[in-house]
């Protein structure tokens, strides 16, 4: 499903080169549940952005669903991203002037799918996320947990194969965080590949496979028993 080979990602900070990712080799199969942990600056977010094609490797090769991403142009990438990748962010990133339903609908809108096809999917997503009565609320009228559930619904509306979550519980209280993780895990049980970047050790232990990063390298990669 996901295959990273000798991935390097260098940043130029002043006259110093920072190796955010340093020779990463990683293979993830469909339906896996991965957590990526590590201190700040260890490269875990960069890894996630790279998998989501928001960032590009300085060298190395990346293939997703047997397609070589490294050789694609920007337009193709955007299509692949829309089709295969769902993002969940720490800061939710909902568009404030759009209602919950409209936020969820956005990826379908961008993909050029007709309103008549979109409508039932949005309904279904609202139902699945338990947000039916919040459909027409603006993000500022929703609680943090509800906002993140809207974001998850948005990330999964195109039925992607990979769900990338960057500190999805970082802005949430304990209870809402639990809810969100439960939601993500239930999606994983239905077959989606789930990759969570987190600081939370407790969360790290829940995943089937845990990766620890340090200074741009994978320090350990082990299955949780």
């Amino acid at each position: 499903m996901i295959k990273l080979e000798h991935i390097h990602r260098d940043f130029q900070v002043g006259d110093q080169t920072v190796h955010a990712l340093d020779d990463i080799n990683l293979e993830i199969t469909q339906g896996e549940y991965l957590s990526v942990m590590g201190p700040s600056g260890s490269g875990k977010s960069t890894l996630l952005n790279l998998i989501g094609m928001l960032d590009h490797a300085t060298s190395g090769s990346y293939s997703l669903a047997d397609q070589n991403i490294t050789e694609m142009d920007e337009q193709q990438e955007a299509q692949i991203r829309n089709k295969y990748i769902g993002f969940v962010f720490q800061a939710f990133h909902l568009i404030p002037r759009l209602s919950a339903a409209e936020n969820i609908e956005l990826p379908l809108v961008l993909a050029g799918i007709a309103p008549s096809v979109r409508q039932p999917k949005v309904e279904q997503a609202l139902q699945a996320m338990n947000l039916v009565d919040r459909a027409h609320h603006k993000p500022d009228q929703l609680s943090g947990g509800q906002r993140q559930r809207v974001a998850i619904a948005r990330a999964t509306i195109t039925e992607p194969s990979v769900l990338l979550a960057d500190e999805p519980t970082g802005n949430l209280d304990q209870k809402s965080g639990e809810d969100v993780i439960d939601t993500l895990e239930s999606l994983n049980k239905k077959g989606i590949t789930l990759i969570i970047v987190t600081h939370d050790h407790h969360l790290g232990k829940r995943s089937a496979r845990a990766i620890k990063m340090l200074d741009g390298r994978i320090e350990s990669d082990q299955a949780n028993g």
Partner: protein
Amino acid sequence: MITSDILGYSWLSLKGYKSRTLLMLLAMSISVASVLLLTALGEGARRYVNGEFASLGTNLVIVLPGRSETAGMGLNTMMGVTPRDLTLEDARALQRHSAITRIAPLNVGAAEASWQSRKREVTIMGSTQELLTLRHWKLASGSFLPDTEWDRATPVCVIGKKIRDEIFGAHSALGQWIRLGQNRYRVIGVMASEGRSIGIDVQELVIIPVASAQALFNTPSLFRILIESKSREAMQKVIEFTENTIKQRHHGELDVTVITQDAVLKTFDNILSALTYGVGGIAAISLAVAGILIMNVMLVAVSQRTAEIGLLKALGASRQKILVLILTEAMQLSLLGVFFGFILGLGGSWGIRSALPELQAYPPLWAILASFGVAMLTGLLFSLLPATKASKLDPVRALQGH
């Protein structure tokens, strides 16, 4: 993305930032309105002047005795021949041409008019019946000169309104005998026309048959011959015919000047059109300024929405889509601006027309089309930079709000 979704998304973002949208609309619509208003004023002035000239009579050819240009040392100058008079016979000879619809020979002089004990000096114009129609004059009462042979000196006269008031006062003027110089004339009509044409105030005029005027002033020579051509196109033919005929009658010498009212009118028309284009152009600059404003505000909008643009990219929007979205937004804004500008501009010119009915201030069609085009074009051009900037944003940094 489907077109309706693109439009909807841009529309929502315009609605989402109301004060920004309203400011831009204000700038755009004021610029568009100023183009329309200024050109409407220019066009109004042009129509006004045209109208004034048309009231002189349309398609007029005027024959004046004498010629301003020097002929050099010709036979006539050597023999000491002075230019010939323009006579009634000359005028009559011009009647033959099919493109000439009306001819009015004119004879002008001054004499004392008196009735009972009242006297005043008046300008007397000798002419024929066709003068009335040719000059687009109107009668207040009675009738105009009778349709008789030109050389018949009927003792009748038509007087201007002011003369009527001053000489007859409260009495009825029609049917009264008035003395002009040595002769007596019966008043058969009173002119209604106001205003002046070619320097003569109709209100202070006494009009008598041309033959009567010749007798009164004791001269066969005419002051002018007014010729009305069938159409504007036929005017050149009429001029040529007139010159040839007079030349032939004056023993081969062209000793008259033939001018057209159109030539004068055309000059004015050209000046006023140039003026209208000029002010229109100046107003169009304000449109360009509005365009720069659009660029600035769109740049701010893009930096305000950096995170949103990053998100759109993360959700699978390509650069091109972002570009289209931002451009669509700018276009919608321009379109709305043009719309309100049209309302303002057309409403404003309606206001001008209501306040000054003589000024037909309608914005010309070219100004309407051009202001629309320029507004849309500046909107598009000046939003290209912000849109390109937005499309090139690095999604990772954009999502962090940088």
